[in-house]
């Protein structure tokens, strides 16, 4: 294969072909293209494949490494199983957008330089927005616009950082750095926005639950996990990330506990799980990085599985709130079992993939003697069982009898859930299958009797707490305010207030006398110019072009004023 041909391009071609093909041919493309991509991913050898000169920068579109292949593998696998889940229900443009989105994620995985990374990053932002819009409701449209604004903003912040780094180092290479100057902080912030880190975390829980039942499966996988990969590549061992990660872990649990919308519960638990990974990147040891990578891999599988089970429920019942659901286990046994497997995995129950991957992170914290980090992560593990492990399946499938008797999942959705359930269990029972592909060699035993007993105590007593506190957790027909309140409520209110303040001024201008109007028009003409004369010789004051001498004079005056103020004001 050509050295410059990123496996991501297969997904791009497939996404384009999905739009052109019809019927069985389209289904075949949806199902085969990710497998072909998977094959191509494993053909990429280690190291930079080739370099192209572009605007005097060395662009490296494809760089292989065990870490990059691991992330690309799970993204391609996700595209395959997600495609299997979605291909009969989704409209073609949702599938095409999801494939472009996956292409962006795989492209980021192999990007050897910051410019390629940025391009694929923005590809993800664009097409994930389309996936949100495919929810089709006015709420989805509005959430999609908010989502796009935040991600484009994040992209600008990232770009500012990249420009700064390129100017100061002269290189676009992706190399580990620490957040110690403006540019590296900007890069870190740009990545953290995509990781749903505070303070702009609300986009995730705002947008994902508004997408279609199939769209949220794709959305749960790519954006936050490419951010984790970017953090591993650029900021391993950055201490700020430990605090950020711990905040995300706790924030996700608390908000998920308050939530009534079933997919919003899962959305908050994405933030919670990504918090574990961000914290691991902050710890930064080889074991911690292995933990972050392994946990990202396992997380994509079980979180997609949980979103699939939620998607099936919404598809079959048309309802998405805990208060409207319950008792579905009677007629949806397969979905119930798959959901429970996903829920046990996210809670890192022994014999599931969560246990064998999350324990790496806790172990890394313990090895570095980070008492508080270890203790908080352990408490959070208990909390995950509480909010996602029991709460989610309990309120959807058990709880009360809602009277709903929906059919179980259609065959393709059922097959997708069974495949991911099997992966959850296999990685839990045979963790070395995943461990061998991790970036660093490690000597780690996943199962020791003591560790299993400790986690069983921790998790089962969390379960006891759940059932004893059940009266306190009665679901209410409410939503919870998050930081998105600032731009959904406070900002419009501020603009409205400004409008009411300035309205009298505008209204007053109507009552000017004829003379006043003439004076106003003359002043406007003198300073702003007439629209048709804006470029002509008789330009108004503000529209005139100035000689360089005048400009220099003004700069000198401003500079003098600045220096004067600088000396007058106390330092």
């Amino acid at each position, binding site marked *: 294969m050509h050295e410059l041909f990123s496996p991501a391009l297969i997904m791009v071609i497939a996404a384009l072909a999905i739009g052109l093909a019809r019927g069985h041919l389209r289904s075949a493309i949806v199902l085969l293209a990710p497998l072909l991509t998977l094959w191509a991913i494993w053909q990429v050898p280690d190291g930079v494949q080739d370099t192209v000169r572009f605007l005097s920068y060395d662009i490296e579109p494809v760089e292989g490494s065990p870490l990059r292949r691991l992330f690309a593998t799970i993204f391609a696998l996700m595209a395959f199983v997600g495609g299997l889940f979605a291909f009969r229900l989704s409209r073609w443009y949702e599938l095409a957008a999801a494939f472009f989105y996956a292409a962006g994620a795989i492209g980021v995985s192999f990007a050897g330089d910051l410019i390629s990374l940025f391009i694929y990053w923005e590809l993800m932002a664009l097409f994930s927005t389309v996936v949100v819009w495919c929810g089709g*409701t*006015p*709420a989805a449209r*509005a959430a999609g616009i908010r989502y796009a604004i935040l991600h484009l903003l994040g992209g600008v912040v990232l770009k500012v950082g990249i420009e700064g780094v390129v100017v100061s180092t002269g290189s676009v290479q992706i190399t580990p750095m620490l957040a110690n100057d403006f540019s590296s902080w900007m890069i870190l912030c740009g990545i953290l926005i995509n990781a749903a880190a505070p303070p702009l975390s609300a986009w995730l829980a705002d947008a994902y639950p508004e997408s279609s039942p199939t769209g949220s499966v794709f959305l749960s996988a790519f954006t936050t996990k490419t951010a984790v990969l970017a953090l591993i590549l650029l900021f391993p061992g950055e201490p700020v990330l430990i605090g950020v990660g711990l905040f995300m872990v706790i924030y996700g*649990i*608390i908000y998920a*506990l*308050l939530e*009534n919308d079933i997919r919003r519960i899962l959305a908050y638990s994405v933030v919670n799980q990504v918090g574990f990974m961000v914290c691991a990147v902050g710890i930064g040891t080889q074991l911690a990085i292995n933990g972050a990578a392994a946990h990202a891999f396992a997380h994509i599988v079980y979180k997609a599985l949980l979103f699939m089970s939620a998607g099936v429920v919404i598809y079959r019942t048309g309802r*998405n709130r805990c208060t409207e659901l319950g*008792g579905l*286990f*009677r007629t949806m046994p397969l979905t119930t079992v798959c959901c429970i497997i996903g829920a046990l995995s996210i809670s890192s129950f022994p014999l599931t993939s969560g246990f064998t991957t999350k324990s790496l992170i806790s172990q890394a914290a*313990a090895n570095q003697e980070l*008492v508080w980090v*270890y*203790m908080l992560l*352990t*408490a959070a593990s*208990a*909390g995950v069982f*509480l909010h996602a492990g029991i709460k989610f399946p309990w309120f959807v499938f058990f709880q009360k*009898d809602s009277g709903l008797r929906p059919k179980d999942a259609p065959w393709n959705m059922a097959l997708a859930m069974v495949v991911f359930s099997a992966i959850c269990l296999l990685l839990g029972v045979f963790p070395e299958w995943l461990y061998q592909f991790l970036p660093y060699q490690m000597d780690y035993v996943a199962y*020791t*009797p*003591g*560790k299993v*007993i*400790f*986690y*069983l*105590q*921790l*998790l*089962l*007593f*969390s*379960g*006891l*707490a*759940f059932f004893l*506190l059940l009266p*306190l*957790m009665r679901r*209410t*027909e*409410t*939503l*919870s*305010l*998050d930081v998105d309140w600032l731009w*959904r*409520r406070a900002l*419009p*209110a501020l603009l409205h207030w400004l409008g009411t303040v300035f309205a009298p001024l505008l209204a007053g201008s109507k009552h000017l006398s004829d003379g006043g109007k003439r004076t106003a028009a003359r002043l406007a003409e003198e300073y702003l110019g007439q629209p048709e004369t804006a470029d002509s010789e008789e330009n108004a004051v503000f529209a005139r072009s100035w000689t360089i001498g005048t400009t220099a004079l003004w700069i000198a005056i401003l500079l003098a004023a600045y220096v004067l103020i600088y000396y007058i004001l106390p330092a």
Partner: protein
Amino acid sequence: MTEEPKEHWLVRPETIRKLWWGFSVVLALTVIAQLAIYVKGYFVVDGWFGFGAVYGFASCVLMVLFAKALGVVLKRPNDYYKESEGDDDA
């Protein structure tokens, strides 16, 4: 397992009572097992007898109460944002 005329076996009171008993036995066993199995503590306290059980239970109670308290401040009706944004669908 026809559920229409009769309640599903899983939701009958006697089943739920049995489940509680079984669950309690399992809980007790996980703690008792620590007598036989050494649990390595990284920071002294986490090796104490039954630490996992107490810590898991206590942190969950704390988190639920904290969320409950926060809910008083943060919870709003479902249509809170609709009036300002003009959404007509949930």
